[in-house]
């Protein structure tokens, strides 16, 4: 017997996609224009801050 999906329950992944926003970086230092997706929980500080630091790191 199949169950009807519960519309109030969302997986974290879906939540992330819904809230994801995008930045587009195009600067002389960079080789190409690349759209960067940003998971909201991986960003901190005001969205209109004058300085944005994108940190590409490896935990290991």
């Amino acid at each position: 017997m199949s169950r009807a999906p519960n519309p109030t329950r969302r997986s974290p992944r879906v939540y992330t996609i819904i809230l994801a926003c995008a930045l587009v970086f195009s600067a002389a230092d960079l080789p190409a224009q690349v759209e960067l997706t940003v998971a909201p929980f991986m960003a901190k500080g005001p969205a209109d801050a004058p300085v944005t630091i994108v940190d590409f790191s490896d935990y290991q």
Partner: protein
Amino acid sequence: MKEYDGRIRLIFKDRPLAGHALARPAHEAARCAGAKGKYWEYHDLLFEAQPAFERADLLLYAGEVGLDRAEFARCLDERRFAADVEADVRQAVALGIMRTPTLLVNGRRIEGAPPLEEFRSIIEQALRERR
């Protein structure tokens, strides 16, 4: 960098390097923590604990930041965020980012972690350019 509160937006992007076998699960685990509102606490713990990133370690850290370990284990084992980590890696590669850390400060690329004073100077310059 408390002195820049309100003037900086920090965005973390996953760039596990291919030779680091335990990195990818750690990045996925951090996103599992993020989905439960504990991203930065878990992120900081990972940097303190590196390179102890076996599954049991990742679960232990989840408990340390107050997450439900069983639920966290499901997220990790199902690899719910594997595609998101891979998307970050692809974006990094598209930008030619092959070393870590690599920072983009208003698009200006900085490879490696600069000394604090140099980093402060880079931020001050970026702030001046925005005035």
